[in-house]
Structure formats: structure tokens, C-alpha cells
């Protein structure tokens, strides 16, 4: 092998490792992105309906555990099939464990601070989790996705409190999840097929 061929081999192998990262990373963003988006839209529609508005929260306790189970199953399947272990996997697990605790903490605070502020904190936590993941994995799509929602939260905080009611907050969350989870995940999947 000449020097150029050797450099090509190194590049090709490193690209293959990145390909696996794209695959593993994007699937979880799709699972949670779609689950949260569907739950948010359903809550908004139920809230605006006359008959079902009292049950506007119903989608969350159904969809979130389902998304959790699908994630756990997918994670186990990917782990068994991957045949390799990285320190990044470990760091990501702790990083998202911390994010999940933050989200649960925000949900617990909702009785004290109200749902609007609770949702602001939830968006902030998953936006930070996504931006940090992007920095760890060196995937700028995720960094931009996280920054998008952080800016959205800053925009909401600049508004007067009475300008942001719960329905407006649901719309903000739907926009945020599309920008932070779904758009970066689909871009990564497109890159996955074009890079290799």
C-alpha cells in the first residue's frame, strides 16, 4: 500500500465509526422527538376540545412510558449487536441520566411554579442535554438543535408572563422538539447514507 492508500484506509475506518454513531444517536432522537411531538399536539387538541379538555394531559402517561420501553429495547439491541464499547457511550448515559433527573425535577415542581414555567425548565433541560451530546459526539447538528431551543426559551422569558399561556407554551414545545430532536436526527440520517 502506498501512503495515499494508507491515509484512505484510516479515513474510511474512522468514517465507519462515525457512521455507527450517527445510527445509534439519531434513532433515540427520532423515538423521543416523535413521542413528545405527538403528546404535545394531542394535549393541545384535547385542551381546545369542549368534551375532552379535562383530560388534556392523557397522552403523556401513555406515550412517555411507551417511548421509554422502545428506547430501552432499542438500546439493548444496539448494544448486543454493536460488538464494541466506547467511553463516549458511558459519558452519554450519565449526561442523559442527569437530563432525565432534571426533567423529573421540573415536573415535580409544576405544582409550585405552574405548568408554563415547568415546561420552560423541561425544554431547557433537554436542549442542554442535546447541545452537550453534540459537543461530546462532535456533531454540530445536535449543538445547533440544542442552541435553537435555548434561544427559544430566552425569547419566551423576554415576553411578559401573561403573554405566554399554557396553549402558547404547548406550541412552543412542539416547535422546540422539531428543531432540537427531529430536524437534527433526520439530517444525521441523511449524512449517514451520504458519508459512507
Amino acid at each position, binding site marked *: *500500500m*502506498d*501512503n495515499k492508500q494508507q*491515509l484512505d484506509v484510516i479515513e474510511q475506518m474512522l468514517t465507519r465509526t462515525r457512521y455507527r454513531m450517527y445510527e445509534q444517536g439519531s434513532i433515540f432522537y427520532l423515538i423521543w422527538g416523535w413521542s413528545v411531538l405527538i403528546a404535545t399536539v394531542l394535549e393541545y387538541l384535547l385542551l381546545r376540545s369542549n368534551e375532552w379538555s379535562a383530560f388534556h394531559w392523557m397522552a403523556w402517561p401513555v406515550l412517555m412510558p411507551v417511548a421509554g420501553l422502545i428506547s430501552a429495547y432499542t438500546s439493548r439491541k444496539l448494544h*448486543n449487536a454493536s*460488538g464494541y464499547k*466506547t467511553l463516549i457511550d458511558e459519558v452519554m448515559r450519565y449526561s442523559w441520566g442527569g437530563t432525565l433527573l432534571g426533567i423529573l425535577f421540573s415536573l415535580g415542581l409544576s405544582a409550585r411554579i405552574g405548568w408554563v414555567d415547568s415546561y420552560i425548565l423541561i425544554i431547557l433541560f433537554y436542549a442542554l442535554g442535546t447541545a452537550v451530546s453534540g459537543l461530546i459526539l462532535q456533531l454540530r447538528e445536535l449543538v445547533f438543535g440544542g442552541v435553537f431551543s435555548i434561544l427559544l426559551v430566552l425569547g419566551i422569558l423576554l415576553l411578559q408572563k401573561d403573554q405566554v399561556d399554557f396553549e402558547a407554551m404547548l406550541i412552543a414545545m412542539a416547535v422546540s422538539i422539531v428543531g432540537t430532536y427531529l430536524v437534527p436526527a433526520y439530517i444525521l440520517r441523511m449524512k449517514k447514507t451520504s458519508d459512507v
Partner: protein
Amino acid sequence: MFKPLDALLQNQIRLQIMSLLMGVETADFNFLLEETQASRGNLSVQITKLKEEGYIKVEKGYKGNYPSTHCALTRKGRAAFVAHFEALKSYWEDGSGTGA
């Protein structure tokens, strides 16, 4: 002044193994087999050569009920790979990248 190339890493399969291990903490034999597209026998021989040189460490274990072999770069192997890569780059940047 060109940096010397590592003769051990000029073999395609060995270079593939080292490059793959640079991106992960450990990798099992089947992962390396799939990614390098080498035959079982050839991969096994190249892994042994890298192990004998102290570039990688090899651990035998079980995955479920099946035996599995896990490989990881050693500190010496990582340093050797980086030095080899830097040497390749220096040849390439100099414009004489076709030299073997």
C-alpha cells in the same frame, strides 16, 4: 526531513484494525471481522502480530453463552498509530505521497 513510517502498520488489515480501535474503547472479533472484510484466519494472524508487538491487548471472554475476543489499543499502540499517521501526513503534505 521525513518521519519514519511504522513497517508493522503498512499492512492493510493491521492498519484497519488500529484505525477502528482508535475510535472505540474495545471491539470484539466479529466487529473487526465485519468492518475489515478480512477472512477469519487472516484477521486472527494480524491481531496476533499486533498483540506480539504490544500495540493491542486481547482478552478472551463470553458474550452470553458464546466465547468472544475483545481487542483494545495499548498506550504504545496509540502512540505508534499517531506517529505513523503524522508520518503519512508529512509525506502527503510534501507532495511525495506516493512513496511506499
